[in-house]
């Protein structure tokens, strides 16, 4: 039995997709841009950052587009004054959470958090910075983890577990005290599980994970490697 094809309306545009597809996937295929941060093609979807929230006609709630399957006849709005207001505030909350000082960041100019700020018109942060005192783990020979710039998107945790299969990264504590850790909070360089593949560095949206030896603003990340890797892996295994 082939998968049914459903039609729906996104931002006034009549579009169609497979029943198993999400609003985000269908929107992107139709060049409708929805802001995302935790979502990354090739990784499982979390629905965590709440930036891809959309309005669905008939539902008072907002729905994360990355995990909401499409339905026949659905009418979706990806933009509205309300959505814009919420997305903006969420990005501001992220800036206030840790020490994001773009001017001295390796990822300056190549940072998804910075891009989101531009995209959403965030020109200042209304909330006072929490200014936590966080460590920088430079124990690895080639890479650095700077917690000050981490947005807890879990891309590193997912790529390491789901793609590399090492599960070196996980999260310590919970809530506002959450921190990415390797193994038993082992310094990265001493981790027994890390293969040094660097996938986590490539998927990190900010300057939290970076390669050593690159000056400020010169960290470029290769992000689209994941879909290629997945497709190729499927071919090679056949």
């Amino acid at each position, binding site marked *: 039995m082939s998968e049914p094809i459903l039609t729906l309306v996104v931002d006034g545009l009549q579009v169609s997709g497979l029943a198993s597809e999400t609003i985000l996937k269908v929107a992107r295929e139709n060049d409708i841009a929805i802001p995302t941060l935790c979502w990354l093609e090739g990784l499982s979807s979390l629905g965590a950052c709440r930036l891809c929230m959309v309005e669905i006609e008939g539902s008072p709630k907002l729905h994360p587009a990355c995990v909401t399957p499409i339905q026949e006849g659905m009418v979706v709005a990806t933009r509205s004054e309300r959505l814009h207001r919420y997305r903006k505030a969420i990005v501001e909350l992220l*800036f206030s959470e840790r*020490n*994001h*000082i*773009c*001017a*001295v*960041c390796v990822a*300056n*100019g190549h940072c998804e958090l*910075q891009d989101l*700020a*531009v995209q959403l*018109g965030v*020109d*200042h*942060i*209304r909330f*006072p*910075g929490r*200014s*936590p*005192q*966080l460590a920088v783990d430079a124990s690895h020979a080639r890479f650095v983890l700077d917690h000050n710039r981490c947005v807890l998107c879990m891309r590193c945790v997912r790529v390491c577990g789901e793609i590399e299969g090492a599960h070196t990264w996980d999260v310590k504590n919970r809530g506002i005290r959450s921190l990415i850790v390797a193994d038993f909070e082992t310094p990265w360089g001493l981790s027994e599980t890390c293969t040094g593949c660097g996938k986590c560095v490539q998927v990190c949206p900010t300057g939290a994970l970076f390669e050593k030896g690159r000056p400020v*603003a010169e960290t470029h990340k290769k992000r689209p490697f994941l879909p290629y890797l997945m497709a190729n892996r499927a071919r090679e295994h056949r």
Partner: protein
Amino acid sequence: MTMLRLATLWLDGCSGCHMSLLDTDERLLDLAAMYEFVHSPLVDSKHFPEAADVVLIEGAVSSHEDVARLRLARHHSRLLIAVGDCAVTGNVPALRNATGAAAMLRTVYLDQPALNPQIPATDLPVLLELALPLHHFVTVDLFIPGCPPGAETLLTALTGLAAGTVPGPPLSTRFGA
């Protein structure tokens, strides 16, 4: 067209934003046609004037003196513009916020190898515990992020202001630009 009275203020910053203003080069002359520079580290004036139309403020608020100067500027200016990341987010001066002012002074004056390590007893402003952006103290009318915001960006904003179109379309700048 009446000339607008323009003031600029330099709080806790590196003066890079003021340099950006100077980077407008020969177009400074165009600005001079629209604005009268009434107060600025770039011009010779001791006191903030009674009434300014626009004040551009560079730098974070790091000391009690900064707070006083900022409040005074706000009180005497129609439009207050936060220029550059330090004024907008705290930026580099705010790097000390995680540990506080005293720890920063120790790091700067005592922990570095030096001949006679000591924290100067005079000539240091009384620091606030945190270095903060302007809008934590006063109402800010326009934010121009960037480290520093480019000369073009400042020019666009000032030209727009003079023409009465600011805030207008978003400026092509961002945090860290």
